[in-house]
């Protein structure tokens, strides 16, 4: 049995990779994809802890995260379509309405 710490460390690595992806990608769709990566790493952590705690509540949680991730992806992509229609571009650098 692989000890649960390795799974948690792996989840941390994937989380950090997703974070880096959100920061450095310029295409807004790519940013959303990196966000999905981060969600998955969290799922991994949940199940790893389930292994340790000998409970299945974590997996129930992952179930919910899956659901919500789907909803969020749908809404997010809908927003991106609306933005694209408005600005004709998906470069995140152009979306700086909140700049000082």
């Amino acid at each position: 049995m692989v000890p649960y710490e390795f799974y948690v460390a792996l989840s941390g690595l994937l989380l950090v990779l997703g974070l880096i992806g959100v920061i450095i990608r310029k295409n807004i769709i790519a940013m959303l994809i990196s966000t999905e990566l981060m969600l998955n790493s969290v799922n991994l952590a949940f199940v790893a802890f389930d292994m340790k705690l000998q409970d299945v509540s974590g997996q129930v949680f992952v179930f919910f995260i899956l659901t919500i991730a789907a909803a969020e992806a749908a809404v997010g992509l809908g927003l991106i379509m609306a933005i694209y229609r408005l600005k004709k571009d998906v470069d995140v650098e152009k979306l700086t309405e909140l700049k000082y």
Partner: protein
Amino acid sequence: MELDVIAFWSFATLAVISAFGVVFFRNIIYSVLSLISTLIMISGLFFSMGAELIGALQILIYAVAIVVFYVLVISTVPEYKGQAIDPKYMLLSIPVGFLLFLELAYVSIYGAWASNTGIFTPEVLSEVGNVKAVSTILFSKYLFPFEVASLILLVAMIGAIVLGRKEQAMDEEEVK
């Protein structure tokens, strides 16, 4: 070497490599494909941990439905011609990310976690099976969140439809 150890290391390595691919590929379709790969590897990891239900659900929902969303949107939007990666942020984010990873690893390995709280010891699990275990908890203790989740899905669906619609101002004016 036991099967789960081999499974862990192979799935883990491939997942990490795919994740790198998601982040660093210039072409966005390559990025999406790497995402699929990552998702499948993670599903494999779920299976190796004994969480069969969500392993299966992961593939069904993520690797199929969500990725299809992404591909649909990517195909609607014309090819993104700019730089894929912004070098300014790379300089700062990679060290920060690395340090964060180190800290998380430190926490996970040397952290003090709680001990057993649950009822599903391996003996019970081997007797009952993972699916039954998860569904028992899901439909008893977490019934309310389950119902709420379905409502959220409904709302998200409506939202996505509204957001994705084209403007219909001209039709309305003609009607008047």
